[in-house]
């Protein structure tokens, strides 16, 4: 078969992917960035106001609070998931029994949506009838836990709910990683007389570094996209105290009718992600000769 003809089939098969990449990803990205330099309100206008939208953006409280929140949320969520997920994996691995049951329990929240997660925790944590009320009913009448209604605390609870939902993911990744650790490493360490916790700290965790990177990346992606959980749990409230960038953009695009500002915010998100992601992607996929096995 002639190479040209063969290639024609391959390119046809890749046509949908190319269309999606060119139009839905790159095209929209360019369009969004372009819109961020316009004064568009409810409908797009193709003028050029330079960086005025960005200037406005960073003088908008709603945005600065959003950025602050996403940093708090992101840090707590990622660290919480990594620590708890890793601990769970270690303990499940050490127990060496009931693994299926435990894994099922720790992982089921992941099967549920962020909306469901947000709503459940909203119900449990609501002060009037939830945890606080129940503990008071048990007799500790001065017990107070109303962070969901405190402007400067609500975001912590969102992070908490997020950890509950996602740390099973980290556990599953780490459990696979632990199983992949050379068993002879354990033997060598035992012969060297290294205490178990030090084996984990000095040998296992370094050996699992790729797993930690992968998990962090997946969690970070979830952080940037976090929208559903906030909408469901606090709707950005009380007031605008638990707003996040993803929600900021959606709100200004579809309800607050300020396309210029919204696309400027989206562009800031895009740039941030790119700056963080590019070095990693390069190292991970393109420096270490992709598909080296096909070199022959």
């Amino acid at each position, binding site marked *: 078969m002639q190479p040209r003809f063969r290639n024609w089939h391959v390119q046809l098969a890749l046509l949908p992917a190319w269309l999606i990449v060119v139009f839905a990803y790159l095209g929209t990205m360019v369009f969004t960035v372009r819109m961020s330099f316009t004064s568009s309100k409810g409908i797009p206008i193709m003028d050029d106001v330079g960086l005025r939208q960005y200037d406005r953006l960073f003088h908008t409280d709603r945005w600065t609070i959003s950025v602050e929140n996403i940093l708090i949320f992101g840090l707590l969520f990622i660290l919480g998931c990594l620590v708890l997920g890793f601990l769970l994996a270690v303990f499940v691995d050490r127990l060496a029994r009931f693994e299926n049951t435990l894994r099922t329990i720790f992982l089921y929240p992941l099967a549920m949506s962020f909306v469901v997660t947000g709503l459940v925790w909203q119900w449990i944590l609501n002060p009037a009838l939830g945890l606080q009320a129940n503990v008071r009913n048990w007799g500790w009448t001065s017990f107070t836990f109303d962070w969901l209604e405190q402007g400067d605390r609500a975001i912590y609870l969102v992070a908490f709910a997020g950890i509950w939902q996602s740390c099973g993911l980290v556990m599953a990744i780490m459990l696979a990683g632990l199983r992949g650790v*050379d068993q*002879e*490493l354990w*033997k*060598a*360490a*035992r*012969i*060297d*007389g*290294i*205490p178990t916790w*030090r084996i984990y700290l*000095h*040998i296992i965790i*370094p*050996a699992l*570094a790729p797993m930690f990177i992968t998990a962090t990346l997946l969690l970070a992606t979830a952080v940037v996209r976090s929208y559903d959980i906030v909408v469901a749990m606090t709707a950005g409230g009380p007031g605008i105290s638990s707003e996040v960038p993803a929600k900021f953009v959606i709100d200004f695009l579809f309800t607050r009718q300020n396309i210029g500002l919204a696309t400027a915010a989206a562009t800031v998100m895009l740039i941030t992600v790119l700056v963080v992601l590019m070095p990693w992607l390069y190292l991970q996929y393109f420096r270490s000769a992709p598909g080296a096995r096909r070199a022959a």
Partner: protein
Amino acid sequence: MASVSVRRLAVSFGHVKVIENLDLEVEEGEFIVLLGPSGCGKSTLLNTIAGLIDIEAGQVWISGKNVTWTEPKDRGIGMVFQSYALYPRMTVQQNLSFGLRMAGVPRAEIEARVAKAAKLLQLEDLLRRRPAELSGGQRQRVAIGRALVRNVDVFLFDEPLSNLDAKLRNELRVEIKKLHRDLGNTMIYVTHDQIEALTLADRIAVMRNGVIQQLATPQDVYHRPKNQFVAGFIGSPTMNFLTGRLILGAAGPTLDLGSVSIDLSAYGFARQSSDVPAVLGVRPEHIDLGAASPGHFAANGKVEIVEPMGADMIVWSRIADTPVRIRVDGDSAFRNGDDIAFHFDLARASLFDAQSGERL
């Protein structure tokens, strides 16, 4: 004094008994190789000595102490693994010193020991590298170094050369042998490679199904295999086996192969039993071409296949319908169908009971 002593050992995984009632005495300074096919329990035995596997019954003694329940680190052993098991993301220096630091050995002492091991194993230029930056042979040298710095009496090797390519394996094999010569420690070495076993060992323990089949010097294991399993496992190409009936006639013992009868008077019997099915084992290198010498068994045959192997050549022929391999000089010229005469010395052959496989 025995350096390592295993007494009436039993090990099982779940309900599977891997080792039952095993005894092994290793002399001080001795190089013992545990040899056998995979799944024969040799690694299990080694791990038991190391204290990495809990035993079900029996005792383990090392250097005159009962260490049956002792933690691996306190047994006075160093161990080298097949996968090297180097600590990732630590430099060679850190790999060598980590255990000592954990044990609270003084800094100067650590440095001295690491330097000594590095010198002995030519690791001095590699101390700052990480395992990922080392070749397989270098990694294994580091792994040996890690055992070395522990200043212990007994070294355990668990198939240390199996992950290396043939050339490196040969080089490192010699290095291990030199190491044993220079240090004089007791070494217990697990392998499935008979060349390693024959070249390194003072004594070889050939194992199968958790049982030591024969514990003897390489010469003995090769020349006087205790049973048919050992005979077939050691030697490459493998020993020729001729199955027949042992008959103790008036003219002396013979092996009746049906069409041919082999006079066994020259064979040094360990014990005799009459009229039993028996197997005669003859190594290919013990069959010579040409006219028979006295006391040898002679036969004629046709060349069926010729396998040149460089230094020597394997010629396939037949004795009484049983295919026989004959090892001849590499520069011989044979063609399929050539008529050949060959003979072998019965004093160098081995006779086994066909049922029990035991040497007769």
